[in-house]
């Protein structure tokens, strides 16, 4: 018997029991007996014209059922309709080592691998570029014919009067930060299970996608199939962080194989392959200039960002636009100039990663602000407080801000870390640093304009008294299905157990754009509330009918529909549900959400990127111990406060904030993807060092609730905003501990030792009276 009490705040994930018992089926766990094994043949060179690709031997091997090549798909795919320049299997040219060239489906893995070894592949090698400078150099061979200078996109934005701002400043300084390419390293390797049914010409695709709708679109495009012939299902997904936020080549390749084999194909990529074709945060060089008045007021900001984007467009244009747009929205800045360059190189295409586009420019901004505050003798907290925005407002680049809890975030972490009591009074080698960050709650303009609402949620109420929410929103571990269940339960005044969520199966659930730019809570949450309100109206009407009252005379709480005038006149939810179904049968309602036009950014080119319904805000303090002999940095503790509007599920919000801070720590301390002649030098989880539990600090979370007027129950995003603040806070803490200013990420022991040696050398010269 379900008891219909009001839900408590802070609940475990509704699919958590499946996860802790091992019952949760991820893509590779799906029933696949009899499925063929897919394997991909990859380019051994970084750049070349394909002279010969001969798969005849592979095709003739016993046990090989299908072989596909670039000839099997003539359509490019990608993210933005204007920038689709990647083929699932290379045609004419290869542009990075590891790029898929051909693929086989065979009865077992050994046969598939033997088939790969029998493929003959000849290329005429072309000059390859592994850094942005050489790719942009005069005379460099173009990766793409239509992109001179190997420039995917240059962005030039000026808001306000930067020259006047710098002229009015008391202090103008510049910083330049090299931020290494980093990888999502989600725990579940990529996998897809595709089934093609030749008699009905139908394709069912199950994959690790964060964007099943876009996968659906690209499958239809690349396979030249009707959209209605395709079904895309997202099973349990083992993390994303942006790794699967665009359609991936292996997904389309698996579908091509299944159709060619007229059957079922399971493709599981190795961890090495995950690194070979990753879509990570690009290596970025940021040069940033700030003007500050003596009191800490920012007078102007000028920034140049160069991103090494890899071989294909992917999300590139969006990333380089985000990097500039999100210079704003955190502080009140009267003038901003931004020049962004997204450059092609012969490396795996970069993509979106948690904090998409904002992280490296935010890092440089915060690092410079901290140094300038020091020079002016201002406290890092004070200089931030001097530049707070006041909501509601719009930034110079037309970003809409309706709620703003940064001030409170600052207060909270300042207090919790005992900043003023401890900073400057710590033992040698110990230090405290702080920084702020923010992130969007969903992109207010969708990538593909269709005229549809931004989110749709369907609710079904049936005779058994259960409510089923149907949403296309893919839960990838962030807890979005739980969020949907909670807002529906809260709106209806019913316990969580009454709500079942079915997510991300295109045959059942309404279309959803997917898990990116932290859009789900804001958009899908609002659509779910809209649906729940409509259902509640129907239920109240039914209760009123039965009790002989007007709907406005009834209130519903804790699963009881009660007369406002006569408290004894009441009906329980199951009775009301039965009444509501009389003459109607199963009830279905649909809720929608559309971002209003005023949230959709400025009219300038690229103005849609960065536009959102609301920003999350974060402040954090990092405490470090630095071993000056080894260069080893230990993060002792992090205090973080994040304004997520309203915490729909405080437990999940805490978990997301801790995860974001920690991922920022990986980028700050040890994560780095380097290449040797275009081949990833760190293509395993041992070589690509993500922090282990042994070196991960306690992260104390404070949740600030600014209650956004448009957010679902007042909520905004909580998963990304805290990431970008970690690295600059760490760099500030290291400066506080040992007096060196680090300019490159990650701050490895090597780099820190080098900086300490330089520092000592300079000190020695000074003591000898020599000129620097």
């Amino acid at each position: 018997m379900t008891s219909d009490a009001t839900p408590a705040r802070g609940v475990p994930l509704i699919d958590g029991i499946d996860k802790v018992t091992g019952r949760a089926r991820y893509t590779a766990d799906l029933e696949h007996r009899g499925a063929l094994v897919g394997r991909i043949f990859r380019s051994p060179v970084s750049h070349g014209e394909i002279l010969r690709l001969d798969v005849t031997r592979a095709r003739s091997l016993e046990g090989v059922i299908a072989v596909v090549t670039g000839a099997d798909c003539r359509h490019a795919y990608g993210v933005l309709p204007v920038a689709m320049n990647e083929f699932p299997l290379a045609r004419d040219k290869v542009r990075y080592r590891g790029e898929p060239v051909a693929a086989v489906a065979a009865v077992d893995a050994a046969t598939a691998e033997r088939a790969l070894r029998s493929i003959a592949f000849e290329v005429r090698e072309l000059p390859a570029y592994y850094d942005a400078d050489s790719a942009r150099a005069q005379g460099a061979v173009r990766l793409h014919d239509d992109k001179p200078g190997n420039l995917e996109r240059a962005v030039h934005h000026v808001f306000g009067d930067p020259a006047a701002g710098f002229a009015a400043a008391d202090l103008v300084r510049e910083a330049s930060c090299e931020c290494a390419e980093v990888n999502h390293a989600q725990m579940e390797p990529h996998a897809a299970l595709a089934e093609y049914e030749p008699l009905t010409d139908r394709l069912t695709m199950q994959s690790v996608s964060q964007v099943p709708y876009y996968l659906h679109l690209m499958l239809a495009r690349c396979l030249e199939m009707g959209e209605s012939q395709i079904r895309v299902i997202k099973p349990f997904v083992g993390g994303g962080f942006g790794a699967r936020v665009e359609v991936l080549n292996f997904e389309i390749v698996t579908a091509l194989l299944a159709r060619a084999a007229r059957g079922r194909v399971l493709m599981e990529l190795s961890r090495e392959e995950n690194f070979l074709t990753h879509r990570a945060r690009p290596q970025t060089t940021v040069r940033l200039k700030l003007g500050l008045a003596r009191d800490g007021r920012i007078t102007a900001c000028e920034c140049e960002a160069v991103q090494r984007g890899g071989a294909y467009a992917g999300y590139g244009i969006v990333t380089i636009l985000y990097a500039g747009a999100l210079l704003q929205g955190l502080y009140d800045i009267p003038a901003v100039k931004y020049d962004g360059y997204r450059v092609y190189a012969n490396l795996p295409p970069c993509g979106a990663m948690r904090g998409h586009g904002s992280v490296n420019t935010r890092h440089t901004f915060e690092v410079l602000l901290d140094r300038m505050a020091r020079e002016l003798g201002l406290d890092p907290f004070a200089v931030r407080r001097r530049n707070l925005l006041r909501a509601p407002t719009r930034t110079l680049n037309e970003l809409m801000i309706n709620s703003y809890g940064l001030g409170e975030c600052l207060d909270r972490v300042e207090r919790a870390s005992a900043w003023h009591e401890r900073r400057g009074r710590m033992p040698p080698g110990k230090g405290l640093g702080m920084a702020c960050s923010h992130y969007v709650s969903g992109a207010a303009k969708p990538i593909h304009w269709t005229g549809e609402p931004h989110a749709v949620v369907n609710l079904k109420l049936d005779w058994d008294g259960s409510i089923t929410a149907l949403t296309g929103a893919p839960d990838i571990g962030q807890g979005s299905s739980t969020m949907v269940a909670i807002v529906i339960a809260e709106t209806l005044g019913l316990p969580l157990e009454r709500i079942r969520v079915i997510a991300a199966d295109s045959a059942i659930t309404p279309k959803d754009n997917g898990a990116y730019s932290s859009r789900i809570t804001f958009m899908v949450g609002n659509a779910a509330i809209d649906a729940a309100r409509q259902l509640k109206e129907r239920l109240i009407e039914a209760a009123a009918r039965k009790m002989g009252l007007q709907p406005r005379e009834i209130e519903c709480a804790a699963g009881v529909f009660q007369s406002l005038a006569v408290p004894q006149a009441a009906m329980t939810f199951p009775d009301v549900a039965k009444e509501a179904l009389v003459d109607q049968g199963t009830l279905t309602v649909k809720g929608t959400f559309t971002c209003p036009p005023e949230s959709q950014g400025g009219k300038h080119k690229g103005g849609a990127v960065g536009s959102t319904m609301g920003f999350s805000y974060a402040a954090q303090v990092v405490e470090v111990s630095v071993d000056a002999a080894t260069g080893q940095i230990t993060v002792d503790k992090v205090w973080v406060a994040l304004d997520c509007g309203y915490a729909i599920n405080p437990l999940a919000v805490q978990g997301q904030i801790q995860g974001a801070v920690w991922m920022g720590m990986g980028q700050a301390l040890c994560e780095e993807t380097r290449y040797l002649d275009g081949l990833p030098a760190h293509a395993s989880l041992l070589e690509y060092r993500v922090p282990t539990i042994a070196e991960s600090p306690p992260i104390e979370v404070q949740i600030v609730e600014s209650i956004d007027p448009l957010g679902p129950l007042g909520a905004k995003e909580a998963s990304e905003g805290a990431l970008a603040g970690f690295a600059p806070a760490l760099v500030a803490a290291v400066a506080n501990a040992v007096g060196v200013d680090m300019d490159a990420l990650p701050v490895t022991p090597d780099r820190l030792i080098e900086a300490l040696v330089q520092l000592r050398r300079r000190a020695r010269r000074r003591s000898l009276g020599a000129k620097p």
Partner: protein
Amino acid sequence: MAEHEQAILAKRLVRLRLNGSWREEAVAENQLLVDFLRETAGLTGTKTGCDGGECGACTVLVDGEALPACVTLAIRCDGRSVETIEGLAKGGRLHRLQRAFHEKLGSQCGFCTPGMIMAAEGLLRRTPHPGDAEIRTALSGNLCRCTGYVKIIESVRAAADAGE
């Protein structure tokens, strides 16, 4: 390996105790325990997250000791007891570690969770009341990309406090 080199690998009869029940299977000599569990026994709770010995997602207990099943040969488990995540919940009740990971959000995407829980179970059997340092050491071979480990430590601590 070229075609002619591909040796026909012999199979060996292996008798092991899997989650409490003895079973006998003909197992290829080179079959990894993780593949035996996932493909032969159908126990997909044990995950493959890497190319061998990198991430800990496949951690199981062999004679009570936490081992990565992706670098353990199935034939080495002959006569031994193998426990996986599927064997933990008994009598329709969650094991204390499962309950703690669920309630404290020690699991987000859940992919590392079975391995993490098995590694923690190995620890709690040896050390029923571990300190944080012991928890960190015992789980240092298990990567998680979601939680920052904070709630994982809380979960293990809560399970230890809950007792058997």
